[in-house]
Structures are given as C-alpha cells and as structure tokens.
C-alpha cells in the first residue's frame, strides 16, 4: 500500500517583503529518496529547513505520518510550537547540515550519542553502543575517540550523518551535504548517502550533485524562484526535462539533454 | 531652614570646582600616559634586546597588577618621607599617568603587532626612513585601530580621578565629603556627585564612539593590507 510518510501542502515563507517560498507542495512515500535541485536562491534549503521548523513557515502544512509538525491547538487556538515543544518532533527527523556543525568540545562518539542520552532518555552504555553501530555504518568506528578538529571534512560530515542516524528518525534531510567539501572528499560522503538510499531510508536530499541525484534519487523536484517548476522520476526530470526552465538550469550546470554517465 | 532648592546651587558650585580639578588631573595624566605609552610600545615592539623588553614588561606588569591607590600613596606619602614633597595634584597626575602609560603601552603594542608587517615594508620600499615610516604610515593606522581601547581608557581615567580624593586632591569626591560634614544632606550631595561624573563620562564615551564611526566610514582598514 502506498503510505505517504510526508505531506507538504502550500508552504509559504517570507522574510519581510522577500518571498522565498511561494506555495510548495509535495509528498514523500516511505522508503523514497527525493532530491530537490535548483539554482541558488530558489528556496530549496529554506524548504528543507521548514520541514523540521528550523525556519518557521509563514503558512502551509507539514504532516509527518499523520502528525502535524510545528503547530498545535486548533481553530482560533492554533499557534506555532515553541522550540521546547518541537524537540520530540525533531527527534523523528534527522538533519545533516552543509557545514556539519559537529560539536567541537565533544569527541566523535559523544557527538553521536549526546542526543540519545539527553533527548532520547537512553542510558549511557546503550547510547554508546548505538553510536558505535551508527559509526560503523558510516565506516568511522575507529575514529570514535577522536575530536572533530582532527578529522577531514569528509569524515566530519560522515560523523554528522551518523549523529542524525542515531536519532532512529523516520525521515532524513540532507542540506547540500557535500557543497562545503574539497572535491576529493565528496565521494566518500555520497557513497554513504547512496548506501542509505539503497537500504530503503526515507530521505530528502538538497544537492548540487545532479548526476548523483539522478542515480540515487527516486524522484526529483526542480525548484526555481520559490515554486516547484517540475517534478517526476529522477531520470525523467534530469534526462528528459519537459520544462524550458529545467532544461536551461541543467544546461548551465553541464548536463545536456540525453547525457548519461 | 534650608530647603533643597536653596542648597543645591551651593553644592553644584563646589562640586563644579572639583570637576575642574578632576579635568586637570585627567588631562595631565592622559598626556603622560599617551606619550609614555606610545614611546614604550614602539621600543617594546621594535627593539631586538630581550633585556629592554623584559624591563618594559616588568614596568607594565607592576603598574597593572598593583592598585592605583597604592601608587598614589607611594608618590604622595612615600616620597615625602624621603624629602620629595609632591602636591596632591602633582602626585595624582604622575601616579595616574604612570599607570596609564603601562595600560596604553599594552594597547599600542598590540595594535602595532596587529598591523600588517607589509605596511611598514612598503613604506621602507618607497624610500622612507624607519622614522618616517613610523610617523606617516604606521602610527596613523595604529591609532585608528586602537581607538576603541583608547576611548575605554579615557572614560576609565576620568572615573579614576576620584581616587585622588584619598590624597586630599581638591576634586569632586573630596568636596563631596566635606559638604556632607558641613550640611548633612548626604543623599543629595552624593547623588549630585554621581550625576556630575555621569555628565562628564557619558559625553567622553559618546565622543569616542562618534570618532570611531567617522573613521570607520572614511574607508577603514579595508584594502590597506
């Protein structure tokens, strides 16, 4: 049965006079990998950050497995949740940031385990066991006692992925995970993301790596100027785009129509 | 039956005299501090002799880790006992000036070190002598860099003039205490004294803030590297 894990409906976001999101709507099935692509400023990151309410949408609905994210109350009593109230909901959503944001005063294992202990109520041993397991998944178990500053960018990002996985989230969000990495380190991170996708995780990936999106994502959404321009199966949108704007964008980033690699 | 209104002008007049003395102390000390601090800093940063740097470090550390009050007592009472009698005003100016020189030495040293070494090199490369390089290229930039710290020092100095009351310098707190014993309007007198200090310090801080903003707008340190 097709079960919609995530429903996004009519997402709007304005900063003062500037409208960044002008009505974004899409679904995500469980186990599906969705990629958001588009030029800088198109609103893809903002859209992603709205999903776990790091940005508060101006209007629109986000529903994760039947639960409304970020808003509470009903009718006239409806209001935005506070960060405190949002914490349990955010546990269900794992986020990986472009700049990793590993916590420098904690070693790798503590980075991965902290939230399990302080927000997940786990005992330290349990949390550490889980952390080691997640670090295994990203092939960095041996670095568990190191501090982030001693790791390469690619390694740090993989630790960040392990940290998000340790939440046992329903949904994983990746906000341009490789954009801040030196080129030779990009591959190791993409490799891990591909493994997660093949495992059947539900993921939304904002990325500039178009070929990777085509190979790994099930569906792709092309965004521009705060709206969804085109949406469909990854190969279709990227290799046979139907909209002119999509074609123009892909051409700019070096993906001609029919290019397969 | 004296009312507040009757007595206030008298209070303010006397405190105002004290303010003039405070201004004199601040001006004198600032001059010593500025010139002394600058000279010390230049020597400190550009000398090759470790002994000289140690000597300057000893001076600044002593001045900065011992309370100003102790320095004033030393100059006023201490020197008097060996025959050198300084007036309260002179002792205050020298004492606060010497402490200030230590503070500004640290400030200017940091500023000199922060200035890109290429600035000085470029100046020498176009044929300026080291002294000219200092005068026309290095110092102007250092002064701009350190303006916030100098502003802090200036505000602090004005406040520190109050310490001179302990060696009977006729400044604001000195008059305030005398007034209290003669009129017993204690809260009113001290409130006036505090208000007077605020009235002096706030404009000084404000002036420096404006100066900083104006210099920043006039094309700060931008491409000067």
């Amino acid at each position, binding site marked *: 049965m097709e079960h919609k894990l995530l429903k996004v409906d009519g997402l709007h976001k304005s900063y003062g006079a500037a409208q960044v999101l002008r009505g974004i709507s899409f679904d995500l099935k469980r186990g599906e990998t969705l990629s958001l692509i588009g030029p800088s400023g198109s609103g893809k990151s903002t859209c992603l950050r709205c999903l776990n309410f790091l940005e508060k949408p101006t209007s629109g609905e986000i529903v994760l497995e039947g639960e409304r994210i970020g808003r509470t109350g009903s009718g006239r009593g409806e209001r935005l949740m506070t960060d405190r109230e949002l914490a349990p909901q955010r546990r269900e959503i794992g986020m990986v940031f472009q700049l990793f944001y590993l916590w420098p005063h904690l070693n790798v294992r503590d980075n991965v385990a902290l939230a399990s202990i302080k927000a997940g109520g786990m005992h330290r041993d349990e949390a550490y066991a889980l952390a080691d397991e997640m670090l295994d998944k990203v092939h960095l178990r041996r670095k568990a006692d190191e501090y982030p500053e001693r790791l390469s960018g690619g390694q740090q990002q993989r630790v960040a992925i392990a940290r998000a996985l340790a939440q046992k989230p329903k949904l994983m969000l990746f906000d341009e995970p490789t954009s801040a990495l030196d080129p030779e380190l990009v591959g190791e991170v993409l490799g891990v993301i591909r493994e997660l996708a093949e495992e059947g995780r539900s993921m939304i990936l904002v990325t500039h790596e178009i070929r990777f999106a085509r190979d790994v994502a099930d569906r792709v959404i092309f965004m521009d100027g705060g709206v969804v321009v085109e949406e469909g199966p990854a190969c279709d949108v990227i290799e046979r785009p139907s909209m002119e704007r999509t074609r123009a964008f892909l051409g700019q980033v070096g993906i001609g129509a029919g290019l397969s690699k | 039956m004296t009312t507040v209104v009757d007595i206030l002008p008298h209070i303010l007049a006397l405190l105002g005299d004290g303010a003039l003395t405070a201004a004199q102390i601040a001006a004198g000390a600032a001059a010593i501090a500025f010139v002394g601090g600058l000279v010390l800093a230049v020597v400190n940063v550009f000398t090759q002799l470790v002994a000289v740097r140690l000597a300057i470090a000893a001076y600044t550390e002593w001045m900065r880790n011992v309370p100003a009050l102790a320095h004033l007592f030393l100059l006023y009472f201490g020197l008097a006992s060996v025959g050198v009698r300084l007036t309260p005003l002179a002792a205050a100016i020298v004492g606060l000036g010497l402490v200030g020189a230590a503070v500004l030495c640290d400030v200017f040293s940091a500023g000199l070190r922060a200035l890109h070494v290429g600035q000085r090199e470029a100046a020498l490369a176009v044929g300026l002598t080291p002294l000219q390089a200092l005068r026309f290229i290095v110092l102007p930039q250092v002064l701009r860099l350190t303006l916030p710290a100098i502003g802090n020092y200036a505000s602090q100095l004005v406040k520190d003039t109050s310490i001179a009351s302990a060696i009977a310098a006729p400044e604001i707190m000195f008059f305030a205490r005398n007034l209290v014993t003669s009129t017993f309007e*204690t809260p009113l007198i001290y409130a006036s004294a505090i208000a007077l200090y605020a009235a002096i310090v706030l404009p000084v801080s404000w002036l420096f803030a404006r100066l900083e903003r104006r210099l920043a707008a006039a094309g700060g340190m931008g491409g000067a590297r």
Partner: protein
Amino acid sequence: MIAFFAIYGDYAAEWLPRLVLAARVTATLSLLGFVLALVLGAVLVAAQRTHVAALRRAAAAFVQFVRAVPLLALLLALYFGLPSFGLTLPGYWVGVLGLGIQGAAYVAEVLRGGLDAVHRGQREAALAAGLTPLAAFRFVVLPQAMRVMLPPLLNAYVSLLKDSSLCALIATDELMLTARAMASEYFLPLHVFVLVGLFYFAIAFPLSMCSRLLARRLGRGRRTLGTNQG
C-alpha cells in the same frame, strides 16, 4: 641602598603577619564581590536577550549608568548615604555590593561575547537532534562559550582585586587600610607601601598570567576549529 632593605629585616616579623591577615580579607572581599558580579551579570545578559522590551531597556540603562560612575563615588554614596534610608551596612558589605554592581556591567559584556562567539549552527544542530533549548544551551553552547569567557573573567577578578583597595576609604580592614595604618604607625610610608604593592602583585600577577596563557592556548585551538566548520 642596603639600609633600605635592612629596614625590612627589622620589621618583617611585625608587618608580615598583619598584612597576611589583611590579604585574606582582601581576597574574600573581592571573591564575594566577584560572585555577586557573576550573578548580576548573568541576570543582565538574560534581560538583554529577553523579548520584553522594557527589560531590555532597563538592563541597557543600568549598564550605561554603572559604567559612567566611579567605583569610589558608588562606595561612598552607599556607605554614607544608605543610613539616611535606614540601612547601615559595614564597609565590608558595602564593598561587596559596590564591587558586585560595578563588576556586573563588565561581566555581562564578557558573558555576551562568549555566547555570541559560539556559531549559531551549533545550536541549530542541537535543536535538530531533538534537544530542548535548555539542553542545547547546557551541553552545546555553554561549554563552548566558557572557553572564550574564562580569560576575560580572570581579568575581571584581578580588576576587582585592585578595586577592593578603595574599600580602605570606607573603613574596611583590608590590605590598603592596614598598610595606611602601618605607614603612619611606623613613619615608614615608602617601605610599607612598596611592601603592600608586592602583596597585591603576588596575588594578582599569577592570575593575570594565567589569563594570558589561557587566552593564547584557547585562541590557537579555536583557529584550528574555525577551519573545520563552527
């Protein structure tokens, strides 16, 4: 010259015990003032970051006012002025109060600088991982802020230590008052004040040095961290 130092030999036995006792008073006085400054400073920072505009303005006004007034004026005003309102405090506690109030303004600045130095992405990552704002502050932001705040806080304590000497003028039995008394008792102001200067130096200098070393070590560490994403 030797005669100068000979005098210390003669009187050391009498002077040193008195000064050591007084030094203890100075140390506790400034410590209590510092604790008060920390508490008030934290309150000020909280007030500065609140949504309530009135609180923000009150905090800003307080800081502006305190920074414009000399400590001595504050101490004298409290010591001589409070009795008129029915509150007579001994010099020691007026000192703690005055040092705490003045210190709070500076401490607030240091605390603010430390918190601002922590990249906001750190907090975001913590919230995204499901930590409550309080937990995020406790386990992610504060530990990192502490490293930045420690050297300036040490400097603040040294400042308070020096400022405690002003309490001599409100009849508190600390180092400076003791020195003043001894100087007139023995008619040896030069020797006594140099000695008391050494006492202050002996307490303050190690702390200043610590602060400087810490700042250098933490500064180096942070530069490495900075290149690997904050």
